[in-house]
């Protein structure tokens, strides 16, 4: 059934959008990522204007993350204190990111820089996680393997130390705030929640336990994407309510299924699957830059 989107001004098949929402929502529930890094490029591929895709996707992530985080709250796998600190950084970062986005747009290269940052970050994060998970699975297979000791790095010398009970950490608030800002900037530029960067950063840089990471990441993503949605709605008028509703309906259901599937998977399996997905998306976007496009011209809205 076709449905006309009032803001995007295109007609789409309702069931395609519902299905996409469900698929990405499920990934969101399993991995604790918003799924924007998959959904935003897919929406653009099916003909939604990029500006609308980015803004509406942010709105969908609010719903799927909220649905997912409720399940995590029940299992007490959300580090609220850590989430709030990351959120403060995230909001600051998102504000900066929107300004950077505007600047890139004014020099006419926003599309290239968005794609490049996708390729670089998806490649780095995916590659790192893949190798790490492979090693972890190999180690686990050998008898007498010892769990890695927590390293005492330079991070432990920083001031403003505080205790994160849920994560079992006693670290400075500076690293989470810096990570929040960095992810917030990237999230605003790339039009995603930033979970795919946040999750590995929490595991590898802050040393948080994997089970807590997923819920905490979702918790933080809700606030950052709600803020992004509001910015887009008031500044660019690019949030499409009907597209969002369809994506949300599919997404929340998918997220519920995903959260239950996620519990049954082992941490290493979870990580290697996510790494694979991130790498596939990275390869797709890299090919777009490297191969000659079938149409060299593109139409942008309006003049200067």
């Amino acid at each position: 059934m076709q449905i006309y989107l009032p803001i995007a001004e295109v007609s789409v098949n309702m069931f395609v959008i519902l299905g996409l929402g469900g698929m990405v929502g499920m990934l969101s529930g399993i991995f604790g990522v918003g799924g924007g890094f998959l959904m935003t490029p897919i929406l653009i591929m099916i003909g939604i204007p990029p500006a609308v895709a980015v803004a509406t996707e942010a709105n969908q992530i609010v719903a799927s993350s909220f649905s997912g985080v409720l399940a995590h709250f029940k299992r007490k796998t959300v580090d609220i204190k850590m989430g709030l600190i990351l959120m403060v950084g995230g909001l600051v970062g998102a504000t900066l990111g929107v300004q950077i986005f505007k600047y890139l747009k004014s020099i006419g290269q926003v599309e290239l820089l968005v794609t490049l940052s996708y390729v670089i970050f998806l490649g780095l994060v995916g590659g790192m996680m893949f190798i790490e998970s492979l090693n972890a699975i190999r180690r686990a297979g050998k008898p007498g393997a010892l769990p890695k000791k927590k390293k005492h790095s330079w991070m432990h010398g920083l001031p403003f130390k505080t205790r994160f009970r849920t994560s079992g950490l006693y670290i400075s608030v500076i690293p989470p705030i810096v990570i929040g800002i960095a992810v917030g900037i990237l999230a605003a530029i790339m039009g995603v929640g930033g979970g795919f960067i946040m999750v590995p950063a929490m595991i590898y840089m802050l040393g948080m336990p994997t089970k807590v990471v997923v819920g905490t990441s979702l918790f933080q993503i809700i606030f950052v994407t709600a803020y992004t949605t509001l910015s887009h709605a008031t500044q660019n008028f690019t949030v499409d309510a009907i597209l969002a509703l369809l994506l949300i309906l599919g997404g929340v259901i998918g997220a519920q299924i995903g959260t239950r599937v996620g519990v049954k998977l082992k941490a290493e399996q979870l990580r290697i699957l996510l790494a694979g997905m991130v790498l596939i998306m990275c390869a797709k976007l890299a090919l777009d830059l490297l191969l000659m496009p079938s149409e060299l011209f593109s139409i942008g809205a309006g003049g200067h």
Partner: protein
Amino acid sequence: MLRILITAIMLIASPLMAQEDVVVDLSQNRVDITATFAGSNIFVFGAVKREAPLPEGTGPLDVAIVIEGPLETVTVRRKEKKLGIWVNTDSVEVHEAPSFFTIATTRPLVEMLNEGDRRDYAIGLDFAVRPQGPSEEDVESFAEAVIRIRQDDGLYSQREGIVNLTEETLFEADISLPANLVEGDYNVRIYLIRDKNIVSDATVGIAVRKAGLEAWLYNLSREYALLYGLLSIFVALAAGYGASEIFRRLKR
């Protein structure tokens, strides 16, 4: 205005030509874009009014119908390979690019109308986009790109032979409009052509408007953007909570 003037001059300049006028109407003057809008059909019909019988040996009569969306300025970018990757390098602003353009005719266009009139009246896909300013070869390739891309999107088309002309007097055409139509004031231009020259023309307007829920949401998003944004977030949170509750109960 210019078109009427040219037609008038042409008619005065050729007194031998019999006076022929076009009378036309549409099945509808308004297209409502509702939530389930999946394209529409416009039925164009009309007749040829003659004051005197046709002189002997006059050539065949043809009809061309052009439906044109509102004109807009678009920025067209071209990609080039730089340092191994494809990036946007040049951009050109193309003025007067209609958001929608379709032409329906009785016969292949080049056989029924001279090129001068085709260009002057923008009759034909190749004249759909009129690049302004210096008409360098380069700018033309950007204008051609607009035509090519919009043709692929189904927004521009040339439908030769779909206008039915009966007894050189009555004509009709059923012209479909695609689902990705944009709001605005559309013009339907009808040309009566004899011996490759335009002898009469008429213009009728179609108002394409969002209606119902579409219009309400669109206006809300522009006029009460903050409320619209907050509402979007509220719906998202409610849906997230709703799904979580439903699944929790189902599990029990």
